[in-house]
């Protein structure tokens, strides 16, 4: 079937199999491999992207369900000149990543979290990221990064 999806501001139309997942579409059709796959039960959040600004696990949606929608992936977060998005920068400043496998999904989940809660408490950050697993950091520095990104005042709406 034919789907037209805007990803990181670029709109393309492709024929895809009906059973193709959004995450496969992003990785295989659009060549955007920053979005990772960490599980097969929608448990890990490594595949998190923004669909019209809201975080979704791209392994839970079919590519067809994104037809006509706007998707933002990790590749769409930094400025065109490579300047990191404030959330990415906060992860860097606070050592919020180690192996980096969970990181793209985590950053997208944070973008959505901060949109909903621009000034979250630590508990809200921890609850808000419940769907994104990280095996390396123990979350401590991720939480610090989110709190500091929230307070940096640089977040684009």
């Amino acid at each position, binding site marked *: 079937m034919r789907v037209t999806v805007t990803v990181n501001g670029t709109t393309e139309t492709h024929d895809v199999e009906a059973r193709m997942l959004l995450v496969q579409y992003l990785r295989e059709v659009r060549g955007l491999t920053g979005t990772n796959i960490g599980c097969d039960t929608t448990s890990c959040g490594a595949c998190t992207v923004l669909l019209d600004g809201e975080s979704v696990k791209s392994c839970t949606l079919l590519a067809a369900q994104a037809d006509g929608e706007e998707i933002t992936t990790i590749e769409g977060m930094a400025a065109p000149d490579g300047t990191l998005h404030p959330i*990415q920068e906060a992860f860097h400043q606070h050592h919020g990543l*180690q192996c980096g496998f969970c990181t793209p999904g985590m950053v997208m989940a944070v973008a959505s979290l901060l949109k909903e809660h621009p000034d979250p408490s630590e508990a809200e950050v921890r609850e808000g990221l419940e769907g994104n697993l990280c*095996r390396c950091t123990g979350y401590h*520095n991720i939480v610090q990064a989110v709190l500091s990104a929230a307070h940096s005042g640089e977040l684009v709406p």
Partner: protein
Amino acid sequence: MSATVLEGHGTAGVVGTRMLRREDPALLSGEARFVHDLVVPGALHMAVVRSPYAHARITSVDVSVALGMPGVVAALTGADLAGEWASPMPCAWPVTADMQSPEHLPVALREACYVGDAVAVVLAGSQAEAQDAAAAVAVDYEELPAAVDLEDAARDGVLAHLDAPSNRAYTWELIPDPEAVRRAFDDAAVTVKERYVQQRLIPAAMEPRGVCVVPQPFGGEYVVYSSTQIPHILRTMLGMTAGVPEERIRVIAPSVGGGFGSKLDVYAEELLCLALARRLRRPVRWSEERSEAAQATIHGRGQVQDIELAADADGRVKAVRVHLLADMGAYLQLVTPGVPILGAFLYHGTYDVPAYSFTCTGVFTNKTPTDAYRGAGRPEATYAIERAMDALARKLGMDPAELRRRNFIGADKFPYSSVAGLVFDSGDYEAALDKALGLVGYEALRQEQAQRRSDGATKLLGVGLSSYVEMCGLAPSRVLASLHYVAGGWETATVRMLPTGKVQVVTGATPHGQGHVTSWSMIVADKLGVPPDDVEVLHSDTGLSPLGLDTYGSRSLSVGGTAIALAADRLVDKARLLAAYRLEAAPEDLELSDGQFAVRGTPSTGIGIGTLAFEAFTAHDLPEGMEPNLEASATYDPTNFTFPFGTHVAVVEVDTETGRVDLVRYVGVDDCGNQINPLIVDGQVHGGIAQGVAQALYEEASYDERGNLLTTTLADYLVPAASDLPSFTLGRTVTPSPSNPLGVKGVGEAGTIASTPAVVNAVVDALSHLGVEDLEMPVTPERVWRSIGAAAPVPGGAR
């Protein structure tokens, strides 16, 4: 502290600072490439048909239907592939001369020995086609009784392998003086006898494994991309097992999404992709699915521990006696049998104990093989001694901190020759304990605990201590020889300056999240007096770094980092000779400061190391006999292990009505010697604590009685989320290691080693006045709740 390490060289002084990681931008922007991200035209996708039975005779495998399915290129049984193997899958650690090791082939021939054991493979044009066809492979099994429970298996009730004489893999002993142990127990005023179960854990690195083997044209080499911690060891083992000349295998580990020991192995899928790429002369790739990972990637822990302490009336521990049963799983993977042995020397923990007895029996079961998982043997040892010390404290009615203090190896005793035969390099255990107790506010917590108890509160407070010492920096090669490990423990490094003054560091260590690029560039930057950004680190590719022993056992900094420092020193030595020639001075009169060589006291007339690199490159005018270029290599074989230590304190609230445990505070004070980058040290400790807490409270690879793994997904296997953990308070003491010139010890496993007993001790501490003495891990609300019901309150509410 750390600055002294680099005295006499550059003064850029980045070592010891919280320099931000150079690895981050590629990972943060999604540009980093993991194996699964590689685009390889024409690659065939492999799917593995796996046994659904824990133990079964394979009576027939029929691939004919699968072969006819769309996209399928090959479907092969164990028999079809038997000719591909020059030898069975490797185990590099035959811990005893009589160790039993059942033959382990990448695809089983007659007998499947755990759920997940490979019985056939399918290759197709896409992963979906390969998986569909794999489901169509018809295998006839005759189900056999399975050895599931570890203690039953140890009694040989059911044999895990049909042809094996018993389930015993080996028995390993360390009993330096049996008579002394007997006497200590005979004379003891107090003894404790405890049994602890180390449940099996699933390492669950967030990146599942992946392999892609690309044959090069014209009978050239095979490039093996693998999500591995050990490209060098893997290359050698692949060559030996698949019968490919080693020099024709190039292993590359691209970005690797965590390992924790689970990628410290040689796996069937790596061998299969290589053998199939050779057979079909096409690239072959495999991407592990999470539920597959739960079964086909090694598990950790899996021990039953019997520990006894003999103490005098003052609580001084006079002897430790330990017997372990260690679950090998179905086969011996790369270092399976050695994992308990890595803990064998540490069951007296941080305490000055004169008599020691350790035995371990490795036992086969029909379950996923176990192998090294973060800490490998040392978390188990620390858990046993730290839980037993709390049991002893309860028996003596003594504060657990005081009991530890009484028994610590004194700071004046280092280097300390342990009863188990190690020489502990340096330490001040009491300083770390004091710092941790101060940070957590120990006395106030004890008061609050007493208050809540006397108020009859339903949310009780528990405080748990864990003082640990680990042996890191694996390892002196001679020691490994004495333990029958088949390889050495050295590491290599090359440091070279390019014509423009930029620097390349080649290391045999293999990062998968640890930030090596940042740390290695900091060490070299300070040595040479160049900015860290000018130092490129080449790693994880046997084509770039042909010799190395990779990353595990908290060895990368203390062994690999030392090799780098030594190579940099050699490069500086050569540059110094060239500078002396240029400046017409004696080499010993020159000092290197901020990248400039100058005669001591006249810094204005110096020559930059970058200029020297260019001159060494042009080689137009070098001193007689000097070879062109500034490049130096070093291979460092450590003379001893390093012994990081510390004390962690967990504070829990236990709800007596629901059994719920909340970890409300956590303090970790660690001493890893000198720190190259405290930011990275913090991160390693945070992640380690989380994994140790996970063992204490959440995770277990559970099996039913037929040997089916029940926790195959991340929905069933409870890797903690951010909401399951608190923030951590970290502190540090710094006791440099005398074992290596950097004075470093290693920190990758410390948090995991320390935290599990701290948390369980805290929960038991919360409930001890009710008579609760032990809780099995993971300490679930149900277990807590039941234990409260079953316990008999302690008269007088003693601790």
